[in-house]
């Protein structure tokens, strides 16, 4: 007698929990947000058919694509509690057709607000460029290396709705590390933007820091640093 009852109770509990898990979006009634802007490449040419998405906590609220002139105007829903994020040429699980040749831009909000218009202005997406950066530990040299590589990330993330926000991600990302005489060779695959520069700051054996500037002029290039 007890077993069917507990089976029923288990089934009912699972059903209730499933229902709770599924309803994690709370769309604001009587409200729409407008997101607009223009997408261009770093040569000043408009980029058509670029995906623009609004979401809150990864729940899709609105989506559109840039037109032939690169312009977009997206009317989006708004979430009651979660802050708004905007993704340009990013596919966050939505199976969107994005342009893999170009970089992307993401805008993240810290807190929810009641702003109805987000004019993003001109958004420059450059072609992606890959730099394979190899640190080569020469045998016999007993050097210690401390380094920092600054680069413009292909996936640029910027804050939304903050006072005086940065306009782009130029040299906005970095990778730091160090090597000792026993370290093995290591290659870093840095995904950046064509036409930008990568700056290597390094110090050998705790001597003053030196800088090397590398221009990204090819879609894929290799750089070997020997120490």
């Amino acid at each position, binding site marked *: 007698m007890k077993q069917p009852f507990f089976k029923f109770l288990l089934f009912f509990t699972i059903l209730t929990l499933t229902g709770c898990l*599924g*309803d*994690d*979006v*709370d*769309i*604001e*009634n*009587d*409200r*729409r*947000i*407008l997101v607009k802007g223009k997408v261009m490449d770093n040569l000043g040419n408009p980029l058509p058919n670029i995906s623009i998405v609004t979401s809150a906590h990864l*729940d*899709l*609220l*609105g*989506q*559109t*694509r840039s037109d032939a002139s690169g312009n977009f*105007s*997206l*009317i*989006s*829903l708004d979430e009651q509690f979660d802050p708004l994020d905007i993704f340009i040429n990013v596919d966050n699980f939505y199976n969107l057709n994005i342009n893999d040749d170009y970089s992307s831009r993401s805008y993240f909000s810290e807190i929810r607000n009641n702003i*109805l*218009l987000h004019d993003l202005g001109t958004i420059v997406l450059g072609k992606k460029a890959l730099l394979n950066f190899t640190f080569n530990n020469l045998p016999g040299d007993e050097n210690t290396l401390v380094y920092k590589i600054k680069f413009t990330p292909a996936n640029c993330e910027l804050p939304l709705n903050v006072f005086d926000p940065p306009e782009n991600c130029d040299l906005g990302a970095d990778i730091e590390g160090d090597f000792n005489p026993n370290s093995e060779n290591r290659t870093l695959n840095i995904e950046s933007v064509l036409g930008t520069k990568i700056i290597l700051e390094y110090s050998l054996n705790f001597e003053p820091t030196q800088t090397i500037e590398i221009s990204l002029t090819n879609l894929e290039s290799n750089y070997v640093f020997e120490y």
Partner: protein
Amino acid sequence: MFSNIKPILLFFFISIAGLAQETPSPENEEDDPHKVGNIIIGAYLPISFGDNFLNNGMDLSAGAKVVFKVNTYPGIYVGPYFSFFNGEVTDQALLGNYENTTNFVIGGVAGYDFYVNNFDISLGLGVGYSVYANRGLGDNFNDTATALWFSPEVSYRLNTYLGIFAAPEIRHDFMNIDVPSELEDTFGGVNYFNLSFGLRINLGTGYKIK
């Protein structure tokens, strides 16, 4: 879409204008105590027009309408009104990421009713609370509005208690959606030219066929 409804508008205008030329029967001028009122119930075909979010980004489909009209002074009626219809979102970039809607209107009507050669003709005004119950994205949410409409109605008496009716309806929904100023033109209101037809149930014995 608006060009499609021009012939329909013309048809109703000619029909109503033609009927209006008929001499009203003596019954029309009587204060008949047995004319309690009527209930109309029928299909409701929404046709939006103009530059607004609903006309630009949604396909509407048929719903239903029920109106209970109670006679007060001779020829004057008031009563509650209910209608609904469905819509499918065709352009999410213009509306937001949801899939479909059901619009409900609950309100009241008042108007003038007269009788000509087995035809009951009424001219009514209505006001109501309009809710667009939107679905999609795993959540439901509402857009709301105040609806205002004008609806002439023609019905033909089949017998004392039953008739058939057809009624065009010009309706405007004053939307309550918060939008930035540059979207106020398209989200501020929705225009409709709706059609409805169906049964009219007469309440009372004063609706005999002549």
